[in-house]
């Protein structure tokens, strides 16, 4: 075999691993789920069929609309709060911390929780926000509250807090990267041209960090949209999200066809968000060359 032949074979082998991975773990499951979504539920399980009843159900039965809207709302709030938290931190880190060592140390401190178990982090919030939790104990001890308030846990507030905490690194990382890429000379040029700090931020820094913001919102929104653990652990009676419906359709309801149809709908929404964000980013595509 020639050297080139061997190289081609090697390249093919290298590509085939991720390709096979994608087919086996991504396309195959989605293809199966897509097929199921046209089946019909029949006691005790379901039978092969081709009909759109499962999709129609999503529009006919108000419960699915209610939960889709709620999930959309929660995911939006989580993205917004995460943005409001992550942006100033990333900004200060990039522009106000001059020591590279300290900057990287803080960066890691923000990223490291990603390596901690999701469940552990969610449970931690339970112990903080509970009626006898750390927060309530402090508020009662300091005399701010006469007695513990149940308002912190088992509602949408606690879900938002938990989801923000879990997903904020996904907002932080792309914003940090975008800000770090802005040449310092652009900010100096702005000031040189007579524009103050606020003007420079609004007209130069912010527009140039838009790609990072868009990427961060995309991550955070999509991850929160598909979450089912936060509602389960820290959510209350009004915390049922769309992924919980999927879980219950595949689980207790034994209605895999409907569960599949909802999953395909979620996939469609997520792909739509990703496409939109890509468009948005491309529209404001900035070449820093």
């Amino acid at each position, binding site marked *: 075999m020639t050297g080139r032949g061997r190289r081609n074979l090697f390249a093919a082998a290298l590509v085939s691993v991720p390709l096979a991975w994608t087919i086996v773990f991504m396309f195959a499951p989605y293809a199966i789920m897509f097929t199921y979504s046209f089946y019909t539920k029949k006691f005790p399980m379901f039978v092969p069929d081709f009909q759109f009843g499962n999709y129609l159900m999503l529009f006919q039965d108000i419960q699915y609309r209610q939960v889709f809207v709620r999930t959309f709302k929660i995911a939006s709030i989580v993205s917004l709060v995460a943005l409001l938290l992550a942006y100033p931190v990333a900004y200060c880190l990039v522009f106000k911390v001059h020591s590279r060592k300290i900057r990287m140390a803080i960066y890691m401190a923000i990223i490291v929780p990603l390596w901690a178990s999701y469940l552990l982090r969610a449970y931690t919030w339970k112990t903080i926000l509970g009626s006898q939790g750390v927060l309530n104990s402090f508020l009662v001890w300091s005399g701010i509250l006469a007695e513990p308030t149940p308002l912190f846990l088992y509602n949408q507030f606690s879900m938002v807090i938990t989801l923000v905490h879990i997903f904020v690194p996904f907002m932080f990382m792309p914003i940090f990267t975008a800000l770090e890429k802005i040449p310092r000379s652009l900010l100096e*040029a702005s*000031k*040189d041209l007579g524009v103050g700090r606020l003007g420079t931020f609004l007209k130069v820094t912010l527009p140039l960090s838009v790609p990072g913001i868009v990427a961060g919102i995309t991550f955070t929104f999509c991850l929160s949209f598909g979450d089912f653990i936060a509602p389960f652990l820290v959510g209350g009676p009004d915390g049922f999200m769309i992924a919980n419906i999927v879980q219950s359709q595949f689980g207790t309801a034994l209605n895999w066809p409907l569960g599949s149809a909802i999953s395909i709908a979620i996939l469609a929404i997520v792909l739509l968000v990703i496409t939109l964000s890509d468009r948005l980013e491309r529209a404001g595509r900035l070449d820093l060359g």
Partner: protein
Amino acid sequence: MNIIELRELTKSFPGAGRVVDNVTLNIREGEFVTLLGPSGCGKTTTLRLIAGFEYPDRGSVRVSGQDVTELAPYHRPVNTVFQDYALFPHMSVEQNVGYGMWIARAPRAEIAARVIEALRMVGLQEKAKARPAELSGGQKQRVALARAIIRRPKVLLLDEPLSALDAKLREAMQVELRHLHQKLGITFLLVTHDQTEALVMSDRILIMERGRVVQDGTPPDLYERPASPYVANFLGTSNLLRANVAGQDGDVLAVEAGPIRLRVRMSRRFEKTEKVTLAIRPEKSALMTNARPDPGRAVISGRIIDHLFQGDVLRTSVDIGLDTPFLIDTQLASSGASQRLPPTGSEAQISIDEASIIIFPGWSGS
């Protein structure tokens, strides 16, 4: 009238030490002044201290009679052309140029007129709608210039503005900058490490070394009367010969450098055996063609190492028995010397214009 006055300006950076060391200087209105020096000599930091991007540890900056040391960049009547141009990638050329006026809420019509005027000044009016990414390096340079002059600053600061351009374009831009300076009539302060750039464009050159200004003068001044071996070798090239004074007889000074003995006209008094450094320009030296030297020329002998063809100039290295070879530049166009070059390895006599030899006390580099 002085437009810029620096007084005892000092700035240190952690790890880099004193980058600007007690600099005091004046720049007159309308001058084209260049800060020249190798990288790390403090010239860019000096410029940034004037622009307001750095805050000095000590000393003061006055622009147009006003102390601006404490002012933010956006309150100083100066504008900068950045080394990397620093064009805003998300704005078109006209938005870049009009940026400052736009934020200051100047009337639209006025902005439009001034933008066109500035772009016309740099010859780029047809690119008003383009994005920076669509421009060539030279065009970006012009946008950066237009943007910096639109507010009619008292001083234009240029930080190595031509370093990213190729040689041809750089030469053209040198001329254009010179013209722009004449047209605008404002003060230009240029920072560069390129001596040719400095010599071509400036009214006055300030040479910096390790945070200090070591010489200040017009280009011919500096070239012909360098104050130190450092300047002699930085502006153009000089053969620096370490020598000892052998004796002095009236105006004639006898010096020895290893096997070489020279007699130089010199009014200044030296001690016998005092260490001196001789600076001899390669272009003031020649390979001797006659058997006898012309009057006023000293002669040393050596062996040809090689010839370097540099287009209009031929540079010949000659081993004269010292640590470093002696360089001779011959203008080719005038003499057609390439036709009768002595071959490599052959003996040669070098004649030197005695009047051009400069003597500095002490040995350079020790």
